[in-house]
């Protein structure tokens, strides 16, 4: 193999070292460009509207964060919106973890009629574009009387095809059939096997799926846009969007709100980026 850039292999001639530096520079500068919007989001969150739209725009943090938060809470039930996002995210995550681990276990370790067809059907829905569900899901929520109800967001979300897929893969690879058989011989019931043996072995997969589910729920926009009609029931993305007006957008407040919506994701990402990336790509690399 060609010597990696940073080792002095036989191929690392002067020309190679030059191109290596060029590569480092491009990737590094690119990374900074990717991160720059986040930086300005946090900088703008601490400035007033007039400061944000002055020339040159602020490059460093100001001291209007509290004022911006005040505007935010005057115009919106902001903390309530934040709390709703959190509530929906937690409920959605817990239900998804429960139902998908149960279903994934059934698909991975049992034989039953129509198993293949059923699994194929569930996986097939992953290929369907999300807009397919926009209109009918509004109508069903309307029929059920779930408009403006948080459960309209977290209950349908718990039927995650991706979750079933991830769980089945993980259980198939990491829960030995012999262990399940042995427990059965010892007189453990089927639900006992799930709760006492399978579930504890699933911790890493549950962590990954939980992260992915929570982030998706936190960022979800189309779902609440369709079913949440009163500002009191808006989740964070909807609430922020409602502040945008053609006449007098409070940019400082909007940036502060966006920063608050983004910060937890950045923290989560820094704490468990590897788990997250591998989980997301397992789903991708079917």
């Amino acid at each position: 193999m060609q010597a990696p850039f940073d080792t002095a292999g036989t191929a690392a001639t002067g020309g190679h070292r030059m191109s290596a530096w060029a590569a480092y520079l491009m990737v590094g500068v690119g990374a900074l460009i990717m991160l720059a919007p986040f930086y300005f989001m946090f900088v703008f969150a601490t400035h007033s509207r007039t400061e944000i739209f002055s020339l040159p725009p602020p490059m460093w943090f100001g001291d209007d964060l509290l004022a911006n938060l005040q505007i935010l809470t005057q115009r919106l039930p902001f903390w309530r919106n934040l709390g709703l996002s959190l509530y929906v995210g937690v409920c959605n995550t817990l239900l998804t973890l429960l139902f998908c681990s149960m279903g994934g276990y059934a698909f991975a370790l049992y034989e039953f009629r129509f198993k293949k067809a059923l699994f194929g059907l569930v996986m097939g829905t992953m290929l369907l574009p999300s807009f397919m569900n926009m209109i009918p899901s509004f109508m069903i929520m309307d029929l059920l009387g779930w408009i403006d109800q948080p459960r309209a967001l977290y209950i349908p979300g718990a039927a995650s095809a991706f979750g079933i897929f991830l769980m089945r893969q993980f259980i198939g690879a990491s829960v030995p059939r012999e262990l399940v058989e042995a427990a059965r011989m010892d007189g453990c019931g089927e639900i006992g096997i799930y709760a006492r043996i399978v579930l504890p072995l699933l911790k890493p997969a549950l962590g990954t799926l939980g992260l992915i589910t929570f982030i998706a729920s936190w960022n979800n926009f189309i779902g609440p846009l369709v079913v949440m009609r009163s500002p009191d029931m808006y989740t964070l993305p909807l609430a922020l969007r409602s502040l945008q007006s053609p006449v007098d957008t409070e940019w400082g407040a909007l940036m502060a709100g966006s920063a608050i919506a983004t910060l937890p994701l950045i923290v989560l990402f820094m704490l468990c980026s590897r788990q997250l990336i591998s989980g997301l790509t397992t789903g991708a690399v079917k």
Partner: protein
Amino acid sequence: MLRLPPFLRLSPRYAPYALLAPFLVLFVVFGIFPLLFSLYLAFHSWEPTSGLGAMHWVGLDNFAFALQDEWFWKSLRNTGWLAVASGLPQHLVAIPLATFLHLGFRRWRNPMVGAWFLPYITSSVAIAILFSSLFSTDYGLINLAIATVREIPLLGALMPNAAVDWLNDPDSLKPAIATIVFWRYVGFNVVLYLAALQTIPVDLYEAATIDGAGRFQQFFHITLPSLRPMILFGVTLSVIGGLQLFEEPFILTGGKGGSDQAGMTAAVYLYRNAFDFNDFGAASAMSWLLFLVVATLTWLTHRAFRRQGD
């Protein structure tokens, strides 16, 4: 061992059904049924305000309406344009970038991948709001950056002469949206390609080096061909994702499609048909037409890549 009351003790025969039941109930009620419902709706005329009883069978009228609707076609063209303009650069940047990251960057690899990947997990609404300030005409940082580059000789000649009215000029709105989408998804592709690069056997490169192949020859004769399955997969994802584009154009244009509807994607248009114009039947028909487009293009992508290899 855990002792459960007898009514909870299932035989292995029925256990899988019991375990699957909660998921399946939700899946049928909120996944399968809505889909069938939307197919049913596509053949009916219905306004939500008049109640469920007021549905009328109209046959293919909704489909005919959609196919004769110039706005629908315009939204499809917009969507296609945006999918290509945001999707193609993602792969053109991600493949060499992943190759660099794979070859070098031992200690800095993960932070670098993280920096490129971070936009992928952030809220599209927060991002779109942030970018609508960055793209502002007179005071936006992007125009400021362009003005700065304009001062540099040679490079400056490539820059537009005046401040660009990104969000109001129909010709600039699309590139602005494409930029945001590119920014958001390029890191995801980098991660995909990085995963694929790690599976290429090192011997291939060793043999090539012995045969005197240079770095570029190796890239074009070993790396790219080995990446082909992943390129197919990544491009397919970009096609599917690009054709669903909704949130970025929706936020940037205040949900209206922008001046001259330049930012109206098919998904935005079908949302408007349902929730702004109350025409649920036409919107459902459009969603099925759009689905056909997505399915066809996915199939064509697969065919194109397969043929290239034979």
